[in-house]
């Protein structure tokens, strides 16, 4: 710590603290354009000039570190005059058409001039004019407005690792330029637009649509991938105009990818379902909610009583081939409350364990492996083995096994880059592809497809497993024993490793991974990468055929009893069918009814093959393959149209807040409630807050302080250390696979986002395989 004197206040600050940070921490405002926390120093805008005693001229507070006894003044006439003059220089060539500028009202230059500028302009020369350019469907550039703070260049290069922007020409002709001469080819994340202090870079989705003061802001959680970025939606008249995160209040700071920033537009797609549909012969025709709900409830009631009858008959000795009853295929996007209630509805009202969802990461295997691992190192036992997304930034080493976070987990990739750039973290990559993060990698172990487990075995100390890795990989990288050796030795030396892995590691391989991690010399933490906004929540809430909420095995009587006591209804005793098994059984006519909520398990199949095979009820946003085969279609609200909580892939619980409403739709929670009520089986609690309360009581990992979550922050659900060792290891049932969405796809939602379909980069990326 050093003592400095700042505007006649004595301050104690960490040695090396930049004066600008010291000032701001002390509540003394020092203006800047180019200084931006987290990005490299520029000293270009000269707005932060301050007086330092003994220095012959003003110094930039953004480049001078505090030293003992330094006397700094920011409140003198000389400093005020310097700021005034910088703004005068800036306004020379800058257009003064604020009333028609898209940035008006939220422009840093405007604010600075208001605060520090002169009241009149002395500039009487012609202003330099250059035509506005469109660089991509989402990025527009108006050079004369640019003040050359280089934030956009830096965030693209340093933050995104893309480097699509550069500085060309010199002097007053200096401009920012896109990487392809007249257009951009990049990730279209829009970070450059958000970070732009003026109206130079504007968003194709938002520009000239609204004035900032007309907007209401609703911060919620992006519904696209599993990273759980906070996105603050700008809403006017029940219409979402943009997404950003300027207050940096979420786990993602100001980071958003194209999906979080622009791909909210599916909500108003013309194909959006806005009325329930019921099948009349070959046709699905619109109907009222009352009729649709009534029809489903009646049919389901009928099936239930027939099955009860049949069960009695079996007891009575009558032999009748039993059908499998109800199947429920759930969503990766619905809230924790909805997920919890859906499985409760399935298990208590529909009396079935045939509950599953598209599993994109093996959370269950990870939780079980960690819970049942006997802690070898006491230190390890004390520390949470599951890392939060921000923990990546502080880790000294990261081991990435499989996945391509740049495309599939943009926030995780951002954090990894930040760890490498700002903290010198060493990134170890095991992958069968040459992924973009290789640019940041410290060591790379290339693999042939599907050899991840061999690599783990080798790292666990089984040299013979290394044999399978030797030679040239399909991506053309040679693997030698030296390379293997070096990779392993380096990794072994690491003291604090976060292991990040994708769907390449599932089932028993997860235990292998944990064994490998526990052999490293220091602390090891884990992040498993699941696809969607509530993939983790779907698993945690027991939307699984073999596991109850909190990963308690269905077939464990103690676990069942715990829930039965609360729910006052018996739960079927045996594990149910997986998604694939339910689909197959349906085709074979073996399901009485299939209830699909926010999912499209028939993607890539012919809906006609399924018609009439079961009583199919689909609840979704769009009429996809599964809905096209349905008997009843219920139009659901999207994540941006409801409240509740979701859990990201790192286990961070965050709150969804309703931004808009879409007429004709109902939230999934409301639909469950209506269906249960129509069947005479009150499903409660049906308010999200009350449902969360029950979850907290029944799933101890979710019994966490909520203050943060309610205030718009994140709170990690408890680590598996919080579990008592689970009664039995989980049976693996059903596939775990990622949909391999790219930056520009997002399953069904991506199909209906105009922006995602508009950007040319989408075509360059491989479309994900239909599941």
């Amino acid at each position: 710590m050093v003592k400095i004197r700042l505007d006649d206040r004595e301050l104690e600050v960490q040695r090396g603290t930049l004066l600008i940070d010291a000032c701001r921490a002390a509540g003394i405002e020092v203006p800047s354009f180019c200084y931006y926390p987290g990005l490299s120093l520029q000293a270009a805008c000269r707005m932060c000039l301050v007086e330092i005693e003994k220095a012959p001229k003003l110094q930039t507070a953004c480049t001078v570190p505090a030293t003992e006894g330094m006397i700094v003044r920011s409140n003198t006439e000389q400093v005020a005059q310097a700021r005034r003059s910088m703004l005068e220089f800036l306004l020379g060539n800058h257009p003064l058409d604020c009333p028609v500028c898209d940035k008006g009202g939220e422009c840093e230059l405007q604010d600075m001039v208001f605060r520090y500028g002169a009241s009149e302009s002395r500039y009487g020369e012609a202003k330099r004019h250059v035509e506005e350019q469109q660089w991509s469907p989402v990025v527009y550039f108006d050079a004369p407005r640019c003040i050359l703070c280089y934030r956009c260049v830096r965030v693209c290069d340093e933050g995104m690792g893309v480097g699509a922007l550069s500085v060309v020409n010199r002097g007053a002709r200096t401009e920012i330029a896109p990487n392809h001469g007249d257009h951009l080819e990049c990730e279209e994340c829009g970070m450059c637009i958000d970070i732009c202090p003026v109206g130079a870079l504007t968003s194709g989705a938002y520009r000239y649509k609204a004035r900032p003061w007309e907007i209401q802001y609703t911060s919620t959680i992006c519904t696209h991938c599993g990273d759980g970025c906070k996105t603050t939606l700008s809403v006017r008249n029940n219409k979402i105009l943009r997404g950003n995160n300027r207050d940096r209040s979420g786990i993602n700071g100001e980071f958003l990818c194209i999906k979080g920033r622009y791909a909210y537009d599916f909500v108003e797609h013309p194909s959006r379902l806005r009325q329930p549909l019921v099948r009349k012969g070959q046709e699905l025709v619109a109907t009222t909610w009352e009729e649709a709900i009534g029809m489903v409830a009646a049919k389901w009631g009928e099936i239930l009583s027939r099955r009860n009858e049949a069960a009695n008959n079996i007891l009575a000795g009558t032999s009748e081939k039993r059908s499998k009853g109800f199947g429920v295929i759930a969503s990766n996007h619905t809230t924790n409350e909805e997920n919890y209630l859906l499985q409760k509805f399935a298990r208590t009202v529909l009396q079935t364990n045939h509950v599953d969802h598209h599993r994109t990461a093996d959370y269950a295997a990870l939780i079980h492996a960690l819970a049942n691992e006997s802690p070898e190192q006491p230190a390890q036992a004390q520390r949470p083995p599951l890392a939060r997304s921000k923990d990546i930034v502080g880790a000294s080493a990261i081991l990435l096994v499989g996945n391509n976070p740049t495309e599939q987990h943009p926030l995780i990739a951002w954090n990894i880059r930040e760890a490498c750039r700002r903290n010198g973290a060493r990134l170890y990559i095991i992958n069968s592809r040459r992924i973009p993060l290789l640019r940041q990698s410290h060591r790379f172990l290339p693999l042939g497809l599907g050899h991840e487990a061999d690599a783990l075995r080798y790292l666990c100390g089984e040299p013979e497993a290394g044999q399978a890795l030797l030679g040239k990989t399909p991506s053309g990288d040679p693997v030698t024993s030296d390379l293997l050796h070096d990779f392993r030795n380096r990794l072994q030396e690491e003291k604090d490793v976060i292991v990040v892995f994708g769907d390449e590691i599932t089932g028993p391989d997860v235990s292998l991974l944990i064994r490998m991690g526990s052999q490293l010399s220091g602390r090891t933490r884990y992040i498993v990468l699941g696809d969607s906004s509530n993939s983790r929540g779907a698993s945690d809430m027991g939307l699984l055929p073999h596991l109850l909420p909190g990963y308690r095995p269905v077939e464990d009587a103690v676990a069942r009893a715990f829930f039965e006591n609360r729910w006052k209804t018996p739960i079927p005793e045996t594990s149910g069918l997986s998604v694939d098994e339910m689909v197959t059984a349906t085709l074979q006519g073996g399901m009485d009814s299939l209830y699909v909520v926010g999912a499209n398990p028939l993607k890539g199949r012919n809906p006609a093959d399924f018609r009439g095979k079961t009583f199919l009820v689909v609840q979704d946003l769009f009429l996809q393959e599964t809905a096209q085969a349905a008997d009843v279609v219920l139009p659901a609200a999207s994540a941006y149209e409801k409240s509740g909580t979701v859990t990201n892939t790192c286990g961070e619980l965050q709150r969804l807040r309703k931004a808009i409403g879409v007429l004709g739709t109902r939230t999934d929670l409301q639909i469950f409630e209506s269906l249960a009520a129509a069947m005479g089986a009150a499903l409660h609690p049906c308010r999200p807050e009350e449902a969360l309360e029950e979850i907290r009581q029944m799933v101890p990992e979710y019994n966490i302080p909520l203050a943060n979550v309610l205030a718009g922050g994140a709170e990690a659900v408890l680590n598996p250390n919080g579990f008592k060792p689970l009664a039995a290891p989980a049976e693996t049932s059903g596939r775990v696979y990622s949909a391999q969405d790219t930056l520009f796809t997002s399953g069904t939602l991506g199909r209906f986002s105009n922006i995602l379909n508009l950007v040319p980069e989408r075509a360059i990326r491989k479309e994900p395989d239909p599941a």
Partner: protein
Amino acid sequence: MQFSAQLEDKLKKLMRNYPIKRSSLIPMLLFVQDEQGFLRKETIAEIAGRLELTIPQVEETISYYSMLRKKPAGKYHLQVCTNISCLLRGGEELFEHARKKLSLAPGETTPDKLFSLEEVECIGACAWAPAIQVNYQFHHELTPERFDQLIGELQRSRA
């Protein structure tokens, strides 16, 4: 893309001078421009590839340096200095004279592609002002008459 054997040799030697590849960039661009007249898109891509740079990295560099150009100049590129020392000795008048003599606006090339004209900043011939450079050749203490003479010589040397 292959440059002339002589240039390739020069570039090979150039790259040996530095511990990092990018250091060769500016001389390489200039030497290649000397041979090819200007920097074509394909040439830029070639140089980027040789030095393991991205094309924007090369473009941003080119756009900074006033001697690097992406459009062809005349066979004889006339650069007339009008900075202070030349100004005081008639540099501006010489430039005006050159414009009229060749019927060229700054940055233009004669239809026969023989001459192009540019007004430049100090070229380091202040004690022998006014001065011009024709390609890299200095011509000192010029008068309009001596300028015309020079143009005549250059025209004849082509024939």
